[in-house]
């Protein structure tokens, strides 16, 4: 699963798991002002500039100070946030009108208008090295119909566009701040949001304070939020127990279980859209046993007991699955799963004529993934494969994977709300995340047609056919969807934890 | 009254292979301004005897018996604290190796001044002046500048003079010089011996000179004590020991000198004393030189000969049943 942000440190597995540690809780960083929520996140966001931001960590922080046109509810349905309602799409699907909320002000007091939305979207489309350009590629131009209505003129109908506007492409920036800071907007970002940016200590923490300009200011009961970067889940858990932090985002499964046993803490969880997968190099010249024989790939999948993997490594916290779409996704069709059948797998391996076929499983360094790799290794070896595990620094792994210099790669995807985000660019020919080098014209056309129509029933049928075809050819083995945990102090209430894996603290408050 | 009275001095070392008797009942006395030479082969206990006086032996392994009276004060009874007031003030020492006996990290002047600060109430300026005087006294040229230099910047001879300057800084009653010239070239030796003799003249310092070099004895010493295997075998004024040696061992020593052999004319192989020095671990009630002594008789191996007056009188003593000058042809 592409949780690039969680593998930031090449040398992970550092600190320990503390049972209970009620050390005299003087705040870890300089004393946070009272009623300020201290939240630990695993990694430090790269830039806070919505146009350039790439890391998942940035998305965790944006929710607090930068709202989007749309958002996602607990059933993964898209709901309006800065927009007043869902967009009106023309019959030919080539124009999209977005009506904005009224009386909304940016955190610098300037008014939130259609012109501001146009300025932001234009910047996303045109700025050099913009990370949003690809997501908004369907837009040909942005027009301001009136102060509260924006019209998007599209090159072609694009269903996934709405989901993008519920993600980073939906973040709207204050034009006055943009004029003042330009490319350095990320150093002091201004948007619409419950809190506004105050200070950033690189490598250590970020501070936000309550915004009086926010349209929903009365629902915000915290004076501020401080994000602290604690890479190691066990240490974050320890700080939670010692009261140094009020919430610890994205902690490991076994830390979550420890916290459940504690009195002073609570564990929120969310079955997220992220999934774990094994990419298998199927390029013609790959020269590996798995690349040459679909039978061996089938045997490899049949040797993996997804249930046992879940219980032993993840304390049965995740949701075993063999397709990319999350359970909550309205477009999901239950995929046909290859059953765990070691006997049949052994027969297939014998039939393949290759004596103990060699598989090199490349794994980004990290305690949990290492254990997962060793379980898969032992399961595959039971049916006759000879598996070697090759831990590797994440960036090197991605580099090798993209250049096809690998056999199997245990790496998943952080998931997207719209199915297009989980398929396009991953199983389509030439996709930047299509590590296996899989190229199938039928799948390509299925995904393209699904993106071009707004009819949900037809989109889910198209995605189902594509997933089934991938399931047969197995360039990619889906293992499970991740359940993510956020530990909080028992005194913390009002936290909303959506399936996109991002806890929202807008309505959070600390009981006395 | 004699300045220093050593009687029945015993020094035993504890080693892994059992006790070693370095000095066995050594007795001698030292008058004011007198230069006494302790002579003997390597390992005969002369250094152990001398070093036992200021108790400069390794306390963890050496035990000292017998009596050492300095001006009537029994040194062996003094506590280590009180002993520290004696060392450097009443008794001081010059060691054999000038190269290593000075601390390479401190200037020469400071190391001399140290003993003055330890035992006198002089102010820092007075100490500095005294140091320069002392360096002049022992013949170090350009004393004022030399005081600030480091040991490695001086020659062996110069360093030995610095050692002597340090030793006499507090005008001690007794100066113990442990083979002060052995490590020096012959030309430098004479200079150092002159210094020691001049000090005896000017300061009246009594000197115990430890050496194996009979030449040095002849040149500087007033009296001689010959030691063999930890025991004193002959006491005599310097002249008497060369003219009328009483103990066969002393005779053997003198015969081994090439210069004297030449005096007796003829080209003959140098005489030597047959046999080996006995093991220091043994102390039989017998004359330990007997096995190698041409005059040995039953008497010699039966009981240890006492130190008795030799015929020449004036304090010439010998521990032998058949003393007397050379009888053979």
């Amino acid at each position: 699963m592409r949780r690039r942000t969680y593998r930031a440190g090449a040398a992970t597995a550092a600190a320990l798991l503390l049972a209970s540690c009620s050390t005299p809780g003087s705040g870890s960083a300089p004393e946070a002002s009272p009623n300020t929520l201290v939240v630990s996140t695993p990694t430090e966001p790269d830039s806070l500039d919505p146009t350039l931001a790439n890391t998942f960590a940035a998305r965790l922080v944006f929710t607090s100070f930068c709202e989007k046109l749309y958002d996602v509810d607990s059933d993964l349905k898209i709901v309006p946030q800065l927009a007043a309602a869902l967009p009106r799409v023309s019959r030919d699907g080539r124009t999209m009108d977005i009506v904005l909320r009224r009386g909304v002000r940016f955190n610098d007091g300037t008014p939130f208008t259609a012109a501001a939305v146009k300025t932001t979207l234009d910047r996303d489309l045109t700025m050099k090295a913009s990370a949003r350009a690809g997501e908004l590629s369907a837009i040909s131009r942005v027009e301001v119909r009136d102060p509260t209505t924006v019209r998007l003129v599209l090159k072609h109908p694009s269903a996934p566009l709405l989901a993008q506007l519920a993600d980073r492409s939906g973040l709207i920036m204050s034009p006055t701040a943009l004029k003042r800071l330009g490319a350095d907007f990320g150093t002091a970002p201004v948007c619409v949001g419950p809190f506004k940016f105050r200070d950033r200590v690189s490598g250590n923490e970020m501070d936000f304070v309550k915004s009086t300009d926010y349209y929903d200011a009365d629902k915000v009961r915290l004076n501020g939020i401080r994000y602290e970067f604690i890479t190691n889940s066990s240490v974050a858990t320890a700080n939670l127990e010692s009261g140094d932090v009020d919430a610890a985002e994205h902690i490991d499964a076994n830390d979550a279980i420890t916290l459940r046993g504690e009195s002073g803490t609570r564990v929120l969880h969310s079955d997220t859209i992220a999934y774990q997968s094994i990419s298998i190099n199927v390029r013609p010249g790959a020269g590996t046993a798995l690349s040459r024989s679909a039978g061996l790939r089938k045997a490899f999948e049949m040797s993996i007991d997804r249930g046992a993997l879940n219980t032993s490594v993840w304390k049965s916290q995740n949701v075993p699955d063999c397709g990319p779409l999350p359970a909550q996704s309205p477009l999901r069709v239950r995929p046909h799963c290859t059953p765990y059948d070691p006997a049949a797998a052994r027969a297939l391996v014998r039939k393949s004529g290759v004596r103990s076929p060699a598989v090199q499983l490349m794994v980004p360094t990290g305690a949990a993934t290492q254990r997962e790799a060793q379980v898969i290794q032992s399961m595959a070896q039971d049916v006759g494969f000879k598996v070697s595990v090759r831990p590797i620094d994440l960036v090197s792994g991605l580099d090798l994977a993209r250049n096809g210099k690998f056999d199997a790669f245990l790496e998943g995807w952080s998931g997207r709300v719209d199915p297009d985000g989980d398929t396009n660019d991953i199983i389509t020919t030439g996709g930047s995340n299509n590590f296996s080098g899989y190229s199938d014209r039928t799948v390509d056309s299925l995904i393209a047609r699904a993106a071009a129509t707004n009819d949900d029933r037809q989109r889910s049928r198209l995605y189902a056919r594509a997933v089934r075809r991938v399931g047969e050819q197995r360039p990619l083995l889906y293992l499970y969807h991740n359940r993510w945990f956020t530990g909080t102090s028992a005194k913390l209430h009002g936290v909303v934890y959506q399936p996109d894996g991002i806890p929202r603290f807008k309505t959070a408050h600390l009981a006395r | 009254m004699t300045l220093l009275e050593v009687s029945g001095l015993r020094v035993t070392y504890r080693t892994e292979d059992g006790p070693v008797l370095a000095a066995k009942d050594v007795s001698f006395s030292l008058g004011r301004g007198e230069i006494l030479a302790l002579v003997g082969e390597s390992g005969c206990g002369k250094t152990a005897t001398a070093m036992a006086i200021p108790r400069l032996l390794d306390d963890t392994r050496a035990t000292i018996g017998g009596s050492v009276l300095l001006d009537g004060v029994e040194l062996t009874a003094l506590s280590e604290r009180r002993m520290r007031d004696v060392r450097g003030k009443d008794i001081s020492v010059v060691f054999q190796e000038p190269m290593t006996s000075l601390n390479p990290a401190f200037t020469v002047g400071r190391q001399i001044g140290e003993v003055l600060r330890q035992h006198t109430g002089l102010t820092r300026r007075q100490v500095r002046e005294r140091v320069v005087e002392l360096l002049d006294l022992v013949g170090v040229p350009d004393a004022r500048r030399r005081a600030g230099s480091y040991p490695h910047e001086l020659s062996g001879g110069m360093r030995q003079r610095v050692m002597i300057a340090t030793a006499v800084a507090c005008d001690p009653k007794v100066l113990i010089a442990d083979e002060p010239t052995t490590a020096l070239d012959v030309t430098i030796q004479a200079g150092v011996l002159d210094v020691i003799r001049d000090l005896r003249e000017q300061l009246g310092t009594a000197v115990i000179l430890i050496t194996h070099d009979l030449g040095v004895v002849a040149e500087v010493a007033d009296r001689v004590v010959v030691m063999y295997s930890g025991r004193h075998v002959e006491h005599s004024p310097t002249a008497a020991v060369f003219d009328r040696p009483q103990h066969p061992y002393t005779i053997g020593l003198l015969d081994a000198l090439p210069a004297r052999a030449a005096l007796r004319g003829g080209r003959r192989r140098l005489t030597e004393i047959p046999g080996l020095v006995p093991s220091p671990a043994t102390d039989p009630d017998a004359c330990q030189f007997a096995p190698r002594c041409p005059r040995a008789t039953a008497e010699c191996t039966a009981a240890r000969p006492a130190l008795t007056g030799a015929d020449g009188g004036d304090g010439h003593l010998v521990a032998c049943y058949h003393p007397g000058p050379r009888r053979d042809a």
Partner: protein
Amino acid sequence: MNNAALENGPSAAADPGAAAPEPVPQWRRTLRRLLRRRMAVAGAVLVLLFLLLALVGPLVTGSQTRLGLTHLLAGPSGAHPLGTDDLGRDVLARITGGARVSLLAGVVSTALALVVGVPLGLAAGYYRGWADSVLMRLTDLVLSFPYLVFAVGMAAILGPSLRNVIIALAVAEVPSVVRIVRGETLVLRSQDFVEAAVADGARDAAVMWREILPNMTNTLIVKATVAIPAGILGEAALSFLGLGVQPPQASWGVMLTSAQQFLSQDPLLAVFPGVAIALTTLGFNLLGDGLRDVLDPRELL
């Protein structure tokens, strides 16, 4: 006035007591003095135990990689004397497997460091001049690089593996080997027997190899007994940071890392590897101390 024969004393006639013993070979005398030192013997025993564990251990205990998904983090039991780890594998088997890794890491990295460091040190000390200052700058450079950064970089380039750890440790050890060998060479170079060999027209390499090197074997032996435990600790540290051995192979450092996650559930898991590392390095250190005292020519009685 010369002091003639007096100094060396008469020889000739044999003293009845001391029958001249036939000459005892040097190494046997060294061994006897070594055995007299209790601590050195204790060290030797520990090292032997470690070697036994590394060589024979894995054959005796079961597989160190077989998983036991049903009995995770089980305490010591009949089947598993030291209990099982977070994937149900037998801890005793992994300790013995880890011993082999540590042995390799310690010995091979030291050997590599010596093979590279000794010639460089000899050259630096022997030729002096520009060769010396170039080598000195290089050793300064390597010393100034925190060896851990070097290891992290290498793990990123080549992927973490035992081979890379050994290379990283060897590189970290080379500078100190070069410095020690250079120091000894400088001293030995000015000795007469080396001057004599040079005067005989022996080639530089021959002089270095046959004259200078044999005279520093003691120093090198002592250096080895210090470098091996340092290598073992280094490997454990690098594995602890996830840069070392590839799973499923066990290394004591890796075991510590995984044990860390379950400290509160099963603290024993962190104790065994730590104790194993400590005892092994203690053994080498004790042996090293003993050898240093025995081989040091100036050693007092």
